[in-house]
């Protein structure tokens, strides 16, 4: 048993060092969450972010929020553009456009 301790301790220290390196702050985690919406994270970044999110519900909320903003923005803006009840050209603008097309045809 005694002989094993230094070994176990060595492993523990190694793991601790690894964990410390892997632990990032909310500041960094939220930046990574935002970055992940734009580009693929490196495996290291991905792991650090995941570990942080597991431990931190605020950053989990942050990540969900920025995803919700993107998804609602994208779906609503498409929906509104399709919606013929929505804003349309004024009569004056319509005339102006039609004239400029006629003149340049």
């Amino acid at each position: 048993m005694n002989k094993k301790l230094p070994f176990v301790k060595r492993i523990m220290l190694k793991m601790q060092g690894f964990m410390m390196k892997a632990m990032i702050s909310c500041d960094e985690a939220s930046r990574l969450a935002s970055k992940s919406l734009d580009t693929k994270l490196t495996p290291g970044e991905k792991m650090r972010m995941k570990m942080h999110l597991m431990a931190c519900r605020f950053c989990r909320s942050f990540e969900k929020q920025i995803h919700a903003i993107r998804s609602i923005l994208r779906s609503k803006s498409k929906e509104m553009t399709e919606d013929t009840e929505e804003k349309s050209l004024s009569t004056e603008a319509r005339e102006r456009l039609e004239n400029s097309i006629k003149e340049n045809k």
Partner: protein
Amino acid sequence: MADKTLNQKQISDPEKWVELHGDYLFRYAMMRLNNKSLAEDVVQETFLAALKARKNFAGKSSERTWFVGILKRKIIDHFRKSSREDSHDDIQKIIDMKDDDFLLSGARQGQWKTGRRPKDWMIDENDQSEKNEFWEFLKRCIAELPRRLAEVFILREMEEIETDELSNVLELKPTNLRVILYRARKQLRSCLEDNWIRAHEDRK
């Protein structure tokens, strides 16, 4: 040769363009520019560019898609021009802006400050009325962003331009672009939490 021309879909008569696509293109532009006369201008530019390019319409996509493609370039051009007019100081100011969401020192350095911790919004995206309400607040919050942040955010999130292209178009370093998008998202989420969540909770 003759077969080829026969197979091609012909573009409709330009005098019908306003009737067929005007409102749609206008709504598309309004959504991104949030300014009526600007939106009318880019739609006009789009039709004029389409007149010149109509021979190139190959009928591979629908006419509508073809017009939207041109409009998209016009909108990007507009943002590119407006970003050129800005002094580099403006961008630098945004990038250098102090971040006051996180603790700057102590054992909990880098953690969210107490009043700034993101909450669980528990938003149900399948609930149309909830989504509509969220959208109203989102529009207001976007309007409150500093202009540069809003423009970059719109191009990335609504226009769905990838960041490589965006940093080329706006002549921004990729790292600076990343900071700008991060700032915009953080400011929006905080504006929404202050306003939408409050209004939402009041109603419950």
